């Protein structure tokens, strides 16, 4: 076999292998949340009762994402210098396939960033409109300055094409007229950009088409830099005159554009920045009756079971029930039959009032711990962290942080 033929075969093999590799690659539907370290997901923000009002909408139709996010007191010192102070509750999606139309945090409208603090609770509601047809994975997210974006529980949202067409209406404050943000003033923007481009193109054509370029080097290399070479015909008086016209024309174009924008859009304001501290929700002002001590966690890899022993004290006047344990995007509701999403509690999920702690054993048999890479073996912080939700018969709720040292089995 000749070398040429061998090279050709290798080339074809590489091309086919590349095509197979690209062709067989599945589409990415999630957002890499599993790639974040377990401690990063468990010790930063707890997500409680996140829900999506719909999972199928037409373009332009809205659905609402609601839930509660709690910045944990266990917030690690190596993120945001241990002091989260600026945050942004938003959406993670594959690009702008959805539109964020309205957002309230703790009952007030919050278009932009907010002040945040360790231990604080944020009840959020986001009205989201479908934009791009398809099936998209959408998460609520909590970005914290200095640490990045932390993801809440996601949901697949199907957006169907709207036969009536799609627009994104926004109301102008001064005139009260409604614009379609999808293409508002796009033609003006293009016309302007293309006009200026054409002037530049004309300038370049003037210099490069009638004049030779590379061969000029034979002359320019023999004359001083601070001369235009008029004596030798490199740049002529006519060139000077024409370039003056070019400059004047450009100046007139800018003047015309300026007058147009001043007349067409007379009222303009600078971009706005809002940062404020949302009011604390009612739950943050509720009396604290659940106290949770440092726990210890044990993960049985063979049975996919996480067992946490934790001392719990009920300092209130009435019994309290442990409703759920939530950590990162997972929720385990108290139940009796072990299985995915269920937490069994021994000796009982009801804790009587008293001054001495009751040692609870929480058992969660669920392969999700490993699937979500949440057993932090190999990480620098062997901890299981999350929130226990307690409720009294009269409806009082406490979110109590649970932190448990993980004792992994290395078998």
């Amino acid at each position, binding site marked *: 076999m000749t070398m040429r033929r061998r090279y050709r075969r290798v080339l074809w093999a590489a091309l086919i292998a590349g095509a197979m590799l690209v062709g067989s690659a599945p589409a990415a539907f999630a957002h890499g949340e599993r790639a974040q370290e377990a401690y990063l997901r468990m010790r930063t923000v707890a997500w409680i009762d996140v829900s999506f009002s719909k999972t199928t909408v037409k373009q332009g139709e809205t659905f609402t994402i609601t839930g509660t996010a709690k910045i944990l007191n266990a917030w690690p010192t190596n993120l945001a210098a241990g002091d989260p102070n600026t945050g942004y509750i938003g959406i993670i999606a594959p690009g702008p396939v959805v539109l964020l139309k309205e957002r309230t945090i703790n009952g007030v409208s919050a278009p932009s960033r907010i002040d945040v603090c360790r231990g604080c609770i944020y009840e959020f509601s986001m009205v989201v409109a479908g934009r791009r047809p398809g099936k998209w994975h959408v998460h609520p997210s909590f970005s914290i300055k200095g640490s990045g974006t932390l993801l809440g529980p996601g949901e697949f949202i199907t957006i169907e094409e709207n036969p009536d067409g799609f627009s994104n209406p926004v*109301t102008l404050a001064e005139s009260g007229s409604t614009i379609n943000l999808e293409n508002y003033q796009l033609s003006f923007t293009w016309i302007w950009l293309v006009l200026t481009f054409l002037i530049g193109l004309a300038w370049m054509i003037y210099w490069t088409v009638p004049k030779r370029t590379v061969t000029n080097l034979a*002359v320019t290399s023999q004359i001083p830099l601070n001369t235009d070479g008029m004596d030798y015909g490199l740049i002529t008086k006519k060139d000077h005159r024409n*370039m003056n016209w*070019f400059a004047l024309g450009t100046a007139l174009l800018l003047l015309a554009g300026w007058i147009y924008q001043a007349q067409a859009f007379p009222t303009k304001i600078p971009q706005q*920045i809002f940062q404020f501290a949302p009011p604390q929700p009612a739950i943050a002002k509720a009396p604290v009756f659940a106290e949770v001590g440092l726990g210890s966690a044990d993960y049985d890899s063979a049975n996919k079971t996480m067992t946490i022993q934790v001392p719990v004290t009920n300092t209130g006047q009435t019994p309290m029930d442990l409703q759920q344990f939530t950590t990162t995007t997972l929720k385990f509701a108290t139940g009796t039959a072990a299985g995915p999403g269920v937490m069994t509690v021994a000796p009982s999920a009801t804790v009587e009032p008293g001054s001495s702690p009751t040692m609870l054993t929480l058992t969660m048999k669920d392969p999700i711990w490993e699937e979500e890479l949440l057993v932090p073996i190999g990480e620098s912080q062997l901890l299981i962290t999350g929130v226990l939700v307690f409720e009294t018969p009269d409806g009082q709720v406490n979110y109590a942080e649970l932190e448990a040292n993980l004792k992994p089995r290395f078998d």
Partner: protein
Amino acid sequence: MAVDSKTLELRALKDKQYRWIDRKWDLVFWVTAAFVVGAAADITKQLFAGDWDFWTDWKDRQWWPIITPFAIIIIGSALQYIQWLAWRFPTGMTYTAVCMFLCTLVGRWLQWGAFVYYPMNFVWPATMVAAAIFADWVLLKTKSFVLTSLIGSILFAITWWISNYIPLAPYLQPAQWMDRVVTVADVQGIEYVRSQTPEYLRIIEHGSLRTFLGETQYVSLVFGATVAVAGYWVGQFIGRGLAIWPIGRFMKKW
């Protein structure tokens, strides 16, 4: 008027016909260099002023006029030196502007429009063409890089801002949204989800340039023009030190 022999010699040299170095060579040069120049200018802009150029809600009155002219004048200045030195063309800045606009436009339309669906009225690229024409014109008139750096760079920064404020103007109109009055650009910035760019990362209206009765815009323009002078000389260093000088060494060696 009598003309000396050296002048006649150079005139003849200018018009000399070459067998191989003809117009085809010119065409190949201008077209192939366009990609390199456009990419170099765009990358430099992205490094220094990426987000300000991408989003309408980043194009503010304080940081945008300072950062972007500095970023985009660098490669234009280098090309201005090279093309004036080699061919006596006042085209370096305009060539850079035209090439960069085409490269940026294709990138913006393909990557940000067709692939990830951002509306183009949110991610349109700024233009430096008008500013570049004035910078090249100043070089043609003054025939001096020192004067071009002082006059041309300042003119560049100011005309760049004017030529981009005009298409930005519609997006600075106030809109009623989420119980607030914000600009149309702000609405674009929040509604069109930017997953890994939370709003607090926006560097706008941020800092202490708040003197002169709150006329932030004019303070920023003056400061931006001054910084553009520095950017111009960064470009001159690249043109002189990293392009012409090494090529000269290479040519002598061979």
